[in-house]
């Protein structure tokens, strides 16, 4: 997916003015938050479970090489072919080669953020393969020629009117505002694709190291149909999705659907282990697992290791007031919201995405809901500090900070400045708020007043009333 993260400010302003988007965002994030909160409230073991999940993931990250080797061994023992891609370019090469070698011309794909990371569809199209998105949301945005704006609800920014218009234009269907009818149209169109596709492509929510299984957690059934009907199954998964044992899966299944949509369990949980064995009624004849490093082992070695605990539930997006205000596209890459503000700079490089860590008030709502206890606000702060160290801050900001720190060195100097500002402020505003400030505070006062400094700061009042020594 094309990277445009540093345009966050501009894209966000555009999003704020987009009425349709605002309406859709308000409706859906509100619903997600309410459902998630209700599901967590009805699950008293939530805290203990997220603590356990966090511990399991930490153990995985501490011994990732061992668990990966185990996973690869177990998966290959069961007939899967495992590939590891160092970077997106290599991942695209491998994916295209698999499709070519398997003689695939049509692939059905269920949703995968990992696949977005490597621009999977473009890679296959380059190899002459038609890729059809089979997740309803992904299907819609593929028709619209857009990128997903939410991890689990990729078309969250589209209204049913827009969707009906797309179906009319691309599928020749009549206009309707009935959601079941729209779903029926997509299903009819997709069913034919499922039956003729040579390859099904999926992501993976978990990889169980002790059985070599790929676990898919979905609601629409397209994931299962796409992975068992076609002759070939290709799973594209980040290396951090490993869990040590199949027995750990229930811990994560208790957390993921609740955090995502407020469901106690998703409609489908598919555990895909190896190729079809003699006597199996269904399953792929060939199974490829493409594991993505793509920057992950570099993250593993540094101070942001815990970001790799993420299970992509999107609870942090839904809870984030900034995401709620601007939606996912403003973040300019695959991942949005607080997880995107941390993960994007780490995966693509901070210079390419330094605007994102600033896109947060540090309110902490994300850390409150994270089911694996990732300290997102701490990481945002850490990235802002890295930006300074890597010389990515504007000279203006650094000069302002140095000036401000210089004043704060001496209370006497601060008081003198406060008193001058107080006199000027009171003179010009007559004690009311300031309606217009110069850059860089001009944005602040566009729709808000800025307070006028007091004529006499507290320090002075205290000295007058109580004396210096008290």
């Amino acid at each position, binding site marked *: 997916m094309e990277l445009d993260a540093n345009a966050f400010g501009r894209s966000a302003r555009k999003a704020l003015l987009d009425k349709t988007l605002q309406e859709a965002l308000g409706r859906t994030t509100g619903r997600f938050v309410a459902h998630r909160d209700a599901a967590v409230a009805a699950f008293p073991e939530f805290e203990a479970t997220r603590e356990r999940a966090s511990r399991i993931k930490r153990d995985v990250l501490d011994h990732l090489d061992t668990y990966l080797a185990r996973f690869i061994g177990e998966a290959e023992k069961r007939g899967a072919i495992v590939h590891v891609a160092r970077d997106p370019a290599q991942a695209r090469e491998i994916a295209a080669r698999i499709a070519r070698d398997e003689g695939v011309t049509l692939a059905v794909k269920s949703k995968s953020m990992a696949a977005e990371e490597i621009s999977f569809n473009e890679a296959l199209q380059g190899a002459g393969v038609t890729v059809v998105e089979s997740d309803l949301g992904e299907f819609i945005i593929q028709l619209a020629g857009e990128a997903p704006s939410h991890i689990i609800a990729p078309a969250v920014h589209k209204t049913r009117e827009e969707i009906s218009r797309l179906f009319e234009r691309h599928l020749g269907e009549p206009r309707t505002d009935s959601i079941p009818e729209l779903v029926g149209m997509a299903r009819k169109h997709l069913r034919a694709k499922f039956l003729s596709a040579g390859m099904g492509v999926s992501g993976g929510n978990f990889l169980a190291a002790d059985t070599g299984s790929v676990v898919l957690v979905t609601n629409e059934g397209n994931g299962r149909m796409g992975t068992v009907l076609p002759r070939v199954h290709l799973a594209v998964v980040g290396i951090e999705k490993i869990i040590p044992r199949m027995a750990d899966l229930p811990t994560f299944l208790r957390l993921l659907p609740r955090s995502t949509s407020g469901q106690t369990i998703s409609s489908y949980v598919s555990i895909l282990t190896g190729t079809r064995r003699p006597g199996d009624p269904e399953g792929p004849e060939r199974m490829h697992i493409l594991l993505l490093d793509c920057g992950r082992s570099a993250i593993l070695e540094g101070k942001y290791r815990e970001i790799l605990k993420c299970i992509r539930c999107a609870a942090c997006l839904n809870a984030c007031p900034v995401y709620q205000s601007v939606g996912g596209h403003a973040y300019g890459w695959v991942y949005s919201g607080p997880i995107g503000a941390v993960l994007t700079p780490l995966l693509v490089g901070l210079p390419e995405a330094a605007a994102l860590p600033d896109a947060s008030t540090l309110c902490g709502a994300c850390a409150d809901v994270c089911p694996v206890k990732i300290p997102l606000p701490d990481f945002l702060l850490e990235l802002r500090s890295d930006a300074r160290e890597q010389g990515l801050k504007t000279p203006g900001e650094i000069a302002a900070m140095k000036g401000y720190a210089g004043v704060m060195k001496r209370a006497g100097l*601060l008081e003198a400045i406060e008193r001058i500002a107080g006199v000027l402020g009171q003179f010009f505003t007559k004690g009311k708020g300031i309606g217009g400030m110069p850059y860089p505070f001009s944005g602040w006062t566009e729709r808000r007043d800025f307070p006028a400094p007091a004529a006499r700061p507290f320090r002075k009042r205290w000295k007058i009333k109580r004396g210096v020594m008290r």
Partner: protein
Amino acid sequence: MTYTTGMDPKEPIPVSLFFTCLADAFSPGVCGATVEVLERFGATVRVPLSQTCCGQPAFNSGNRKEARAMARKFLRSFPDDGYIVTPSGSCAAMVKHGYPVLFRDEPRMLARARAVGERIYELSQFLVDVLGVTDPKSDFSGKVTYHDSCHLRRGLGVVEAPRKLLRAVPGVEFVEMEESDRCCGFGGVFSVKYPQISCKMTERKVERILATGASYVTSGDLGCLLNIGGLISRIGYPVKAIHLAEILAGKTAGRWDAG
């Protein structure tokens, strides 16, 4: 150490006031109100006059070199014993949680920062958790709603203390707003870097405040109140943003009006 409410404790309770640079410059009345409330419950208030800013704006914007200099200055300004109380959840959280990050590679400073972090309290937290205040003895009256500042609620875990105090003021009709724990959009440097998003969030906050029909919105952080109050004053809504300390001080807050 818990003191019985309403009784003059035998031992004076030494409290150093960390008045915050924001209140010092923009709302000195809030600092005065804090002094009044602390003294009402037996504290001997000291005001270290060399204090300036805890360094939070620099820390939050990633400018740690400058933040560290301010943190050192803060640690030098305050005495080595007694409580430190501040009318700001955000500034208290900075000292408690931010300083250990700033000094993580300096063991001696880290130990000092942690020790100070143990002694620092936000006002409502100090009144309820340390002094055991159940009746703030305030003569304030009006319909009040409360905004949870993010750093007071999530940073310090203070949720109930301010509500308990507000409910205990006889003249206060306390009413909860919806989404009281949703960020008001201030975020310090955030409101300067992304003012349009910030404003969008503030507008939603003000909508929730207006829906309560309260005459006052209060909070434990002046940053939020300046932000919310700035929008209220621009439009001219019939509600006033006022600091919790001013409600608790009631009429005695007027003693510091010498502006």
